[in-house]
């Protein structure tokens, strides 16, 4: 498989824009690999060759980088990359049970995709939302405070084509390819959706306000 002339042209335009952001072209490699995933759903052979060509690298150099990072999929991934955090804190708070029940429910294991191509399951390391444990991520959007039931419902809804919203994120969950395009540095216009902060993120501020606690005033400041 090679890219059709239209796809190739679009890829080249985007690639040139990405490369233009950096003082040295090779810095564009990570975003270029995200760009490839936004078209192919994984880092395809063609995609890696394309990156090599755009940056004047050997394909081996590109493959060497692509294989280092876990977000680059080596084989076609599902429309929804469903991750369950199994690092210590989330695991203890219920992530292990969520993973076991979800994996059995869906019938695939770590880094495996359902036959309908909808769902790839992944055991995730810490995703920096520990105060919302147990945490799941779908296409790198937050699904906070999960239970085995909510996790199975979530995946059933995704497979049934129902609209699903992250707990802290845009109104509509985007696909893996759409997410990859944002990661390549092409915003999708959804930054304004969703809350500024929610739940535990606001706990300290709420307590401070309830008690009238503030940082000291600067000397000579009005208020």
């Amino acid at each position, binding site marked *: 498989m090679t890219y059709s002339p239209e796809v190739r042209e679009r890829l080249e335009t985007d690639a040139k824009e990405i490369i233009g952001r950096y003082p040295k072209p090779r810095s564009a490699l990570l975003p270029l690999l995200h760009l490839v995933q936004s078209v192919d759903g994984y880092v395809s052979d063609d995609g890696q060759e394309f990156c090599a060509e755009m940056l004047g690298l050997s394909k081996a150099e590109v493959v060497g980088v692509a294989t280092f990072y876990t977000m680059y999929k080596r084989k076609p991934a599902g429309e929804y990359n469903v991750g369950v955090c199994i690092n210590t804190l989330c695991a203890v708070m219920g992530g292990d049970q969520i993973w076991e029940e979800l994996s059995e429910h869906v019938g695939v294991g770590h880094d495996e995709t359902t036959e309908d191509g909808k769902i790839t399951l992944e055991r995730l390391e810490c995703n920096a939302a*520990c105060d919302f444990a147990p945490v799941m991520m779908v296409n*790198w959007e937050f699904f906070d405070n999960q239970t085995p039931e909510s996790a199975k419902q979530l995946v059933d809804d995704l497979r049934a084509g129902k609209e699903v919203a992250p707990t802290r994120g845009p109104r509509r969950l985007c696909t893996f390819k759409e997410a990859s395009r944002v990661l390549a540095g092409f915003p999708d216009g959804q*930054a304004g959706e969703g809350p500024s902060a929610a739940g535990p993120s606001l706990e300290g501020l709420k307590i401070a306000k309830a008690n009238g606690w503030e940082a000291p005033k600067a000397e000579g400041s009005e208020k």
Partner: protein
Amino acid sequence: MTTLTPVLTRNWDRADSFTIDGYGEYAAAKKALGMDPDAVIQTVKDSGLRGRGGAGFPTGMKWGFIPQGDGKPHYLVVNADESEPGTCKDIPLMMANPHALVEGVIIASYAIRANHAFIYIRGEVLHVIRRVQAAVREAYERGYLGSNIFGSGYDLELVVHSGAGAYICGEETALLDSLEGHRGQPRLKPPFPAVAGLYACPTVINNVESIASVPSIVANGADWFAGMGTEKSKGFGIFSLSGHVTRPGQYEAPLGITLRELLDMAGGIREGHQLKFWTPGGSSTPIFTAEHLDVPLDFESVGAKGSMLGTRALQIFDETTCVVRAVLRWTEFYAHESCGKCTPCREGTFWLKQVLKRLEKGQGSEEDLATITDIADNILGRSFCALGDGATSPIHSSVKLFRDEYLKHFEIGGCPFDPAASTVWGSK
């Protein structure tokens, strides 16, 4: 009693906190660009701000290491690769208040005479990346980034760069390699990034929270910042409480607050349970127990008690939690994330994982405790970067504090704990 001091978190309950309207007009950046760059560095030095990414290196001193008049481009790189288990402060900060970071980038870049800056964000947080991208775009539209900012003649380009899933890229030199388009593996130091960093040019790498704290220091003065915290650990920081606590979350307080004080605010350990062990600053910091509830959470006091303040990631575990299971899982993490560059870490974390798996299943022996301690001794101080050192913290501290619990596993031929009891729903 220590009280909370919301500065970075102050506007998070505004629906528009992530926009310029919800943040403000970058008055601190405007003020800084009217100052001599060296005076900006001096202000940050005087404030006593120390790196909020874990190591606690004085920020102003780091900026002062950048050689001036050397004819080379200088770079500022923000380390937004927050991935240390338990650490969850920079992610909500960038989601709710990305302009504090962007304004800090302008001030820091100006101070070190950089015309190009990068924010390297871990890739697994899509909505956070959207928010930072949007904040940068807004700043460009207002003329706060780009050419001739505030008419000062100063130019700055700021690029938001997404990582691709590698904990090691939080190590500053691995981050630089990654940003240059390579596998993220740490570099030999010296030379330090201040001399040969990004593209072999002088580079400052700072954590998100460090940079986001800078506008408040410039606006309110070094004395204001230094008036909070302790003698050597000045200012405020975000403390992240997670785990078996009634109200987990982000608590912004002066350094030196204690876990007892924070737990009082957070409603204590979840009802009907007691504190068993906790990390003061993420999984790479040796664990503490209830004995350490009154240790002031500042760099010196936590260090004096044998751990590290790290990123103030307070992961709290109650008596239902098996410490061997917790340590095994952290160890699996380090083995997974080891970049493979140096032998002690690559092989050592892998071996630790194997032995701990056996121990957790109750198939180990007392000799295994000597083995994991010995392996950890051979990683600590001998690995290429801090990842390997970090991997030994849970091993050494847990064997020291909970030796009996390890022994219990092979006495009864299995884990004495019911994992269901420690889940969120298990306690109900």
